[in-house]
């Protein structure tokens, strides 16, 4: 569709822009839908958006240029992206990608000469339990095999439309292996809300004021404050990684003063970008009511009328099913005006899709993205609870946090607090993948040991577990009795297992490439530092590493920790430092040089010349020994 007529493009843009009420805050959604219709975002589309949205071209191009999934150059009718998490690597994604490229006669990263197809890599797509995986025009394809790759090449060559590809390709399994209170919940839609409404203020913990759903709710309704007390009593802490106390966050938002015309917002963070994490995908596939109901409970508590679900672009396949759930809930009076008959109890939820940017999981970057901007983390303070979406009070919570809020509304805070450990109440869902027999979701009360999880999922000969993804912790066998929880090893959910055949240096290198690719580029230390770190790891990989490079890595870590603007930069060196500390031999293998050696390698630099001349004989190589240097 690259040669579409200007009028046709304008027609598409007009339709999309009108559906989003000509609202520039919906820029990311508008760009996505335009691309879905045009296969890319042609300059003519930007011309038209400039007019119909009334925003400068620089703004549109600035946004379009930020997100990996937006293309301002043609990328073909079939845009294939291989998930490149370490688990995909372990399952052989690179060989499969090469196979597909050979099959289609194209180079990775480039568009085929006939403009039909492009093949490239992308960060973890959240299918680690059923990889290797890819995205075709943002639709997830799982369980790739050589045979499936050959079939796909055939389908592409024959220009078969995606709708006619075998449905089995797009099948995404839940793989629930060990349910506990959340994954075995039988909650009927509306139950938690009705329970919240029935709650009456009790003595003891008493919320600081009696503000109800909306400022205008009939007085005497104690539900919202009482519900907040239950959340506090439950000792619920955020499941997105940082573990902030949910009750305090909700209370701060509830108490934040409202300027004229302002309102409060509930945002559910379903960006789930941390490599190795996929539990939010399953919660939204099979427990969407639990999540939406939790958001509605939160709205009831803080007095919000609008909510957003920020769904990562990789989970595009969930958009229609989730919209159907929202529609059903509206029909059931669980969303919309006067929810379950509460006068003034108005709340509705919109879904915004991301477009391939891990940083948009960071809550202030997420809010920027929701506002239709580049996903750059904001300067804080102020925090979202007072100055969030459109500068108005906003809570951002993880998918699992909201699901837990539903359970608490239903069963009470005391019930919840009794599960787990003293400082880590309730359960945690782990996304288990890597070297084990049964990858999938495992829900445990907090306090479970690493060893227990390994046993349950059928892992053997385990060398290491990466808990909470690249920004988390790498745990070695002598630490397998350590436990999951805020007291010991906190986690956002990833649990990636490596057996003794794996090279932990390459694991760390894959993670470093991830951070480099996902740095938003806003601040100097992370923008440049992650690239320097990547270059150092590649240097080690290429056999040019020396102790000097270790010292450099340590120095970069120090700098990124102290100078970076957000959590991404702060944690970008974690995987390297952890593996250096615990798997030193894996590095020593790569530390070929005793003294400093330059990263530049003349022989490698001549590869392009060899390719161009079609030579690969001995005389076309530089042999280092000839120079009498390193032997």
């Amino acid at each position, binding site marked *: 569709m690259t040669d579409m007529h200007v009028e046709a493009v304008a027609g598409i843009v007009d339709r999309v822009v009108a559906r989003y009420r000509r609202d520039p805050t919906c820029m990311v959604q508008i760009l996505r839908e335009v691309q879905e219709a045009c296969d890319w975002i042609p*300059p003519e589309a930007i011309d038209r958006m400039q007019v119909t949205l009334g925003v400068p071209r*620089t703004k549109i191009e*600035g946004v379009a240029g930020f997100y990996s999934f937006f293309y301002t150059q043609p990328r073909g009718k079939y845009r294939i992206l291989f998930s490149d998490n370490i688990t995909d690597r372990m399952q052989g994604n690179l060989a499969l990608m090469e196979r597909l490229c050979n099959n289609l006669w194209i180079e990775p990263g480039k568009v085929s000469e006939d403009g039909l197809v492009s093949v490239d890599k992308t960060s973890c797509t959240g299918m680690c339990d059923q990889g290797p995986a890819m995205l075709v025009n943002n639709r997830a394809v799982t369980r790739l095999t050589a045979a499936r790759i050959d079939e796909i090449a055939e389908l592409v060559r024959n220009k078969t439309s995606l709708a006619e590809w075998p449905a089995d390709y797009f099948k995404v399994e839940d793989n629930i292996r060990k349910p506990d209170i959340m994954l075995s919940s039988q909650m009927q839609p509306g139950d938690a809300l009705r329970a919240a409404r029935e709650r009456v203020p009790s003595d003891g913990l008493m919320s600081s004021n009696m503000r109800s759903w909306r400022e205008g709710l009939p007085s005497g309704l104690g539900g919202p404050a009482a519900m907040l007390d239950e959340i506090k009593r439950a000792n619920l802490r955020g499941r997105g990684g940082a573990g902030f106390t949910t009750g305090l966050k909700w209370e701060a938002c509830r108490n934040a003063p409202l300027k004229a015309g302002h309102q409060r917002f509930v945002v559910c963070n379903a960006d789930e970008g941390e490599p190795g994490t996929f539990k939010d995908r399953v919660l939204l596939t099979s427990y969407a009511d639990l999540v939406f109901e939790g958001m509605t409970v939160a709205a009831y508590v803080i007095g919000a009328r609008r909510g957003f679900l920020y769904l990562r672009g990789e989970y595009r396949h969930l958009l229609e099913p989730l919209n159907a759930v929202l529609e059903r809930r509206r029909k059931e009076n669980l969303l919309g005006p006067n929810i379950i008959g509460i006068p003034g109890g108005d709340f509705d939820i919109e879904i915004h899709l991301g477009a391939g940017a891990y940083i948009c999981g960071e809550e202030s970057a997420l809010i920027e993205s929701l506002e239709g901007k580049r996903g750059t983390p904001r300067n804080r303070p102020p925090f979202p609870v007072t100055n969030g979406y459109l500068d108005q009070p906003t809570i951002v919570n993880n998918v699992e946090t909201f699901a837990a809020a539903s359970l608490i509304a239903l069963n009470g805070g005391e019930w919840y607090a009794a599960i787990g450990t003293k400082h880590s109440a309730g359960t945690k869902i782990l996304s288990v993948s890597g070297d084990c027999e049964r990858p999938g979701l495992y829900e445990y009360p907090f306090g479970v040991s690493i060893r227990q999880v390994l046993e349950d999922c059928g892992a053997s000969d385990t060398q290491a577990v990466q808990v909470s993804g690249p920004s988390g912790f790498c745990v070695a066998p002598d630490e397998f009795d350590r436990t999951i929880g805020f007291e010991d090893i906190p986690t956002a959910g990833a649990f990636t297992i490596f057996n003794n055949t794996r090279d932990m240096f390459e694991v760390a290198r894959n993670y470093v490439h991830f951070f480099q690719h996902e740095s938003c*580029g806003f601040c100097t230390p992370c923008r440049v*530092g992650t690239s320097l770190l990547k270059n150092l790891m590649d240097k080690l990989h290429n056999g040019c590493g020396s102790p000097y490079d270790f010292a450099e890595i340590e120095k970069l870590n120090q700098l990124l920790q102290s100078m970076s603007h957000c959590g991404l930069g702060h944690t970008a060196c974690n995987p390297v430092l952890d593996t250096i500390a615990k798997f030193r031999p894996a590095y020593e293998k790569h530390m070929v040089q005793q003294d400093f050696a330059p990263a530049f390698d003349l022989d490698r630099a001549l590869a392009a010349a060899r390719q161009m001349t079609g030579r690969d004989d001995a005389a076309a190589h530089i042999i280092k020994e000839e120079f009498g240097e390193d032997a």
Partner: protein
Amino acid sequence: MSQTFTLDGKSIPFEDGQTIMQAATKAGVFIPHLCYHPEFKPHGSCKLCTVKANGRQTASCTMRAMAGMVVESETEEINAERRALTQMLFVEGNHFCPSCEKSGHCQLQATAYHLGMMSPHFDHFFPNRAVDASHPEVLLDFNRCILCSLCVRASRDVDGKNVFALSGRGIKTHLIVNAKSGKLSDTDFSLADKAAQVCPVGVILTKRKGFAVPIGERSYDKQPIGETVEGR
């Protein structure tokens, strides 16, 4: 009497809403900075102005001053990290100072001198960035862009034009101009714009005005950047 905080042991008065940077500048204390400019909304991206406030590193251009705050700035530890940041900026772009018209007036160069940067230390990235010479009066040499966004803010907030913006992500972040062709000559940019004056380095340069002031007599040759605080 207004409220105060201490900066390297010195008591600094401030008014409500002022940042550490604003208060320090007012009091005549220099804190290195590149993306901060007193006339614009702080951006907080270069991180050169990082200080330790009550033991925690933070950008002083965005952090509000608070009564009793203890701020450290001129410590060997912090300056070493700032120096590393200038080195990063040097290797990220292509900065050949001897052939740059901005040499001597350049804030990056002056800050690097101020911090005692003796070499770029890291391997150069040598990015491939085209020069935009399309405009009759102004040359854009993107090789030197440090992504401070001052031109973006000046064009948007003062000129009301949105000539500049940042696009791309991560290490591929780059400056774009407001034209379908991507050329400055196709925008409404003019030499009279505020945006034409704010670039701290040598990206936005006036054409046909080379070496009007000889090297050795330029702004930072005469007065090192550390002595350029307005408040004194």
